[in-house]
């Protein structure tokens, strides 16, 4: 069977589109590849832009509404660019019982933003997680991809303040 070629040209000559195309090719451009493709797109570009969604929709032969529907249904997909640094506070039950709700409130106050937002200077994005599965280390968080356990309020606020000052 010949390898199917992409039906549509990528929006730009950015090399990252090749990764996205590679994922779709692996699944023979089948509509079922949608979620996997969105994962690759977000991994490559950091978030999902309207032009990305349009490209994926056309490549997989899906209506844009379906692609947008999936992209907005799942929490993991983000349509907004992330800040330079990301701070994720776990709000799973174990962490919540150990006070992560208060920790989140303190960071919100320190940064002057709400959970899910990015500071106006684009430095820090603050997110809450459903459960990162590090319950043995509650309260836990993820700072720039590094899991931190048994978080104390002081060290956490210092970390966030450092990011902003840098």
């Amino acid at each position: 069977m010949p390898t199917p070629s992409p039906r549509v040209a990528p929006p730009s000559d950015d090399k990252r589109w090749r990764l996205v195309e590679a994922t779709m090719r692996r699944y023979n451009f089948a509509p079922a590849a949608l979620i996997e493709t969105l994962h690759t797109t977000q991994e490559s570009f950091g978030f999902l832009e309207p032009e990305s969604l349009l490209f994926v929709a056309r490549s997989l032969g899906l209506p844009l509404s379906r692609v947008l529907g999936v992209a907005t249904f799942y929490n993991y997909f983000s349509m907004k660019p992330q800040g330079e640094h990301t701070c994720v506070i776990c709000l799973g039950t174990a962490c919540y019982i150990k006070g992560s709700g208060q920790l989140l409130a303190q960071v919100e106050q320190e940064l002057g933003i709400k959970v899910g937002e990015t500071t106006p200077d684009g430095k820090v994005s603050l997110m809450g997680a459903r459960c990162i599965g590090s319950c043995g280390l509650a309260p836990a968080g993820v700072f720039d991809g590094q899991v931190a356990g048994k978080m104390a309020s002081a060290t956490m606020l210092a970390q966030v303040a450092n990011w902003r000052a840098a």
Partner: protein
Amino acid sequence: MTPEELNQAAEREATASTVHDHVVGVCTSTACLASHSDKLKKEFDAAVKAKGLKNVRVKAVGCCGLCASGPMVYVESKANGSSEAATRTYANVASEHVPAVVESLGAAPVAALACDTTQPFFTRQHKIVLESSGVVDPERIEDSFVVGGYQALLKALTTMTPEEVVDTITRSGLRGRGGGGFPTGLKWSTVSKAVGDRKYVICNGDEGDPGAFMDRSVMESDPHRVLEGMAIAGYAVGATEGYLYVRAEYPLAVKRLKLAIKQAERAGLLGANIGGTFFSFKVDVRLGAGAFVCGEETALIASIEGRRGSPRPRPPYPAASGLWGFPTLINNVETFANIAPIVKNGAEWYAALGSGKSQGTKVFALTGKVLNTGLIEVPMGITLREIVYDIGGGPLPGHTIKAVQTGGPSGGCIPEAYLDQPVEYETLVKLGSIMGSGGLIAMDDTSCMVDVARYFMEFCMTESCGKCVPCRVGTVEMHALLTKICEGQATMTDLEQLEELCEVVKSTSLCGLGQTAPSPVISTLRYFRDEYIAHIEHKTCPAGVCSGLKSGAVKAQEVLA
């Protein structure tokens, strides 16, 4: 790989390991990785290399269980000439301890780091699912061979008929470990009898319950065990393709599963003509994308098909019409992890464990306000008190345990007075909770039960997929009422309304998410009604959690200090 070749591979690996007098196992599961155990492993490597120790193997292993004391390290040493190995376990190991641990090989242990493995946390457990977790290197299939990996698969393929496999699982009494407790053998036999051109096996690794990390640990620590279980299931029900649906939030599990699949395919234990037989089975990993509802089987199937994870009414059940409309077997990670030992040791061996209608063991993620938090596996029938007080080490100093929460957002809170009840599916349901997937969260006098109920309702409200009205609207309304109570704005009429809504949402929602969303409220109302009344009538929060209200007998705890 034929059974003989598998035995030879296992022997080769075992012989190769005899040159090592000492094995240093460093836990590289998520919890310990968070304390930089990957760096620690490299430092051990470097230290052993620098000293030119040829008889020491440093090995990355999966979860050792006591996550709260990570990074965990164990040293297995053989006394001169003896084949018996003695094990030392170390907790809270840091970089500066590496030289001392390496120095101590063959000498007295490092006392300062020693972790007492005679404490109930270790001795009261009974490991079947986790027997190889923390022992094998999850990234090397040869390590699995030594502990009997894939023996059960080849045994099933070469000595049993598919019907015999289904019969073995049925007689073992194994029930779905995802929480529902549906008899696994019955599910398998339904799928095996279903008619379809193709059949699928799906492993549900979308562990969405907040406060639960059992499946993650199994997938990260012993991925081959899960794959073996799926392949046996494929043989039993007549499927040739399997999907492992894993949360995108578990990147390490995804990485190790993908690697494990490649290794198994190369060894001829997955893919075409497994073990030289006519049976072929391939497994593919599919990523979730952060939707709790995808743990529901029909929503999960929709997600694998690349659509929004919305459930659909059942019947038809996936066993009759599942993925792409074909008969599909869906089981949870832990269920699949139980399969290989059952096939290897026989149904009777498994059925002898446990009590009542609950056989075998159950893995729990023990967390919350207890001294020892971590991953445990206990025989069914053990009492909750033994779990919390013996294994968990009891409450934090100066506090008392108030309740235990099982089953996550679909479960309930069991008060201290009922902790002597055994862990069995039926008993937990009678107590107003469920077995659940295995989250077990201890709460003490600083936890407000109304706030806990509100927390779970917030979760269900956000995670409701929005397809059916009772769940979409009901959870929002119940959350608003609970918030009102927490803020001291509610009246007794609100409480009545809340109870009525609980019933409506429970009995009219489309899928399990909505049907069980009121459970945390119903169970806390059943056992802790006085706390609700205190919030409403006396504007007091007995635990001192709800801000804006007077705190009761207990002062607000400085949790963060």
